[in-house]
């Protein structure tokens, strides 16, 4: 029988486990029971590691009983299905990997989660090969958006966003190449962080685009995101792109006040071409930050409008270079959307790629200049709430936009520049769809970003709302 532990936060579960008010076995059994009862509707999990999770829970209980156990001891977590979990066949969201052998080792981030005591509950569904922002996956199934079945969950970390929003798991890992942690966080009404490029190891993660890929956590609060980040961040000899930059105690830095924080809004970009209700909620969020003592002012970033095309110019050839050798003869089993994208990569020339790489420098220099004068940037995470499954275009104001371009327009600039970006719920549309605020920080300054987000969540309750039936 459920003890009602599913739905609690990472922080609360951790507190109860350390106080020995609950056992890790109970916590894990409760979450597994929720998954068994409800994931048929949510379709968030690709694979549930029942036996391994129960075994890990018993080990966590033993460690806690000895007064040991890492900071996440006994806390269940899910992992996107492009992150290797030992003994599990990673599908990468594609039928092409259906017959692949199980992973022989954990990805570095999974090993770190386990070292911190977390219990891996399973792997989550995703947009095929992480190559799209909707989460729609005709071959392996599309996770439901817990707020509105029939609407996309956002991708590519669709199952991770849906699992956290539905309360099946308190936190999950995702990957983000053009917004794939932040977009599902936005559309599913949860909190998600794309850390600085190089902050978190990508060893053992299936690549999409080497210069844009990031790994990051999704959870229901900034506090929980901070706790998971603290466990997974830091240099890794197995990933040459992973930086040797000290990792602060993020959870301890959350108490910093918002007062005096300078927040820049690229209004010329962030408020152009967005849904009227998203604009309202975002403007209200800026008002909330002002009331908390932040100084909000407009900033100008002229080259930011080119970010999405530059990501296209980099991502397509990099994905082609990473995925074709990986897929080999399996390519014929890849779904039509991803196969078309790999074909379209042939239309991107070396001149396009080089121009995109140079534009990154230009945009980074602009943002570095802006972030010398303000502490953070604020913009919406997505300009639209969750579109319907199968919708190819959306009407935004007077204009019709492609859904794919619309979903990524505000997230791509920070994959290009590698800056850390946090998505957090900031309200709902009148029809009950989540709206999300995005805060962006300086390189490796996730601490300021998380503290500002936590301060916002202390003053608002959007992140505490739960979808019906969760």
């Amino acid at each position, binding site marked *: 029988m459920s003890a009602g532990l599913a739905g609690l936060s990472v922080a609360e579960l951790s507190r109860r486990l350390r106080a020995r008010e609950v056992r890790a076995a109970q916590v894990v059994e409760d979450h597994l029971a929720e998954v068994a009862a409800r994931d048929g509707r949510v379709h968030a999990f690709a694979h549930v590691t029942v036996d391994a999770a129960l075994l890990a829970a018993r080990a966590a209980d033993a460690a806690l009983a000895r007064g040991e156990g890492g900071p996440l001891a006994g806390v269940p977590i899910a992992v996107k299905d492009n992150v290797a979990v030992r003994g599990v066949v990673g599908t990468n969201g594609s039928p092409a990997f259906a017959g692949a052998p199980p992973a022989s080792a954990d990805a570095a981030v999974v090993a770190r989660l386990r070292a911190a005591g977390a219990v891996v509950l399973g792997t989550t569904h995703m947009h095929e090969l992480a190559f799209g922002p909707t989460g729609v996956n005709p071959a392996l199934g599309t996770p439901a958006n817990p707020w509105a079945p029939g609407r996309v969950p956002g991708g590519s970390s669709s199952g991770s966003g849906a699992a956290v929003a539905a309360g099946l798991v308190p936190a999950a890992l995702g990957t983000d190449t053009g917004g794939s942690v932040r977009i599902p966080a936005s559309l599913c009404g949860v909190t998600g962080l794309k850390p600085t490029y*190089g902050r978190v190891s990508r060893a053992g993660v299936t690549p999409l685009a080497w*210069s844009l890929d990031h790994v990051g956590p999704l959870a229901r609060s900034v506090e929980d995101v901070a706790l998971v980040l603290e466990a997974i961040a830091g240099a890794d000899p197995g990933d040459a792109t992973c930086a040797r930059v000290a990792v602060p105690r993020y959870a301890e830095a959350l108490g910093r006040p918002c007062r005096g924080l300078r927040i820049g809004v690229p209004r010329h970009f962030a408020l152009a071409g967005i849904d009227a209700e998203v604009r309202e909620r975002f403007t209200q969020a800026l008002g909330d930050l002002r009331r908390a003592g932040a100084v909000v002012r407009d900033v100008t970033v002229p080259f930011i409008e080119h970010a999405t095309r530059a990501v296209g110019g980099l991502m397509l050839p990099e994905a082609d270079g990473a995925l074709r050798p990986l897929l080999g003869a399996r390519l014929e089993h890849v779904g039509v959307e991803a196969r078309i994208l790999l*074909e379209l990569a042939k239309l991107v020339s070396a001149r396009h790629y080089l121009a995109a790489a*140079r534009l990154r*420098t230009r945009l980074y220099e602009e943002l570095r200049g802006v972030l010398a004068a303000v502490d953070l940037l604020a913009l919406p995470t997505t300009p639209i709430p969750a579109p319907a499954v199968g919708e190819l275009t959306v009407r935004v104001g007077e204009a019709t936009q492609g859904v794919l371009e619309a979903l990524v327009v505000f997230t791509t600039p920070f994959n290009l520049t590698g800056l850390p970006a946090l998505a957090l719920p900031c309200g709902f549309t009148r029809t009950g769809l989540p709206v999300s605020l995005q805060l962006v920080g300086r*390189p*490796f300054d996730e601490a300021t970003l998380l503290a500002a987000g936590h301060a916002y969540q202390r003053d608002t309750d959007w992140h505490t709302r739960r979808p019906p039936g969760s």
Partner: protein
Amino acid sequence: MDEIERFRARLAAAGAVVPEEIVSLVAAQFAPVLDSLDVLLDLDLGGLEPFVPTEQLVRDAAG
């Protein structure tokens, strides 16, 4: 030449294969995105070097 024919010609020139039955759909979805890449070629990017995140971000974090 209409948009779809132009797209077909572009695919052929690059050796890209898209099933004939979905060419119009793919053109509608992606031709504007591919066209917009050409905008990058016309930008004045001065003498900038390509961005290397592993170097630039760490340097700025240390500073």
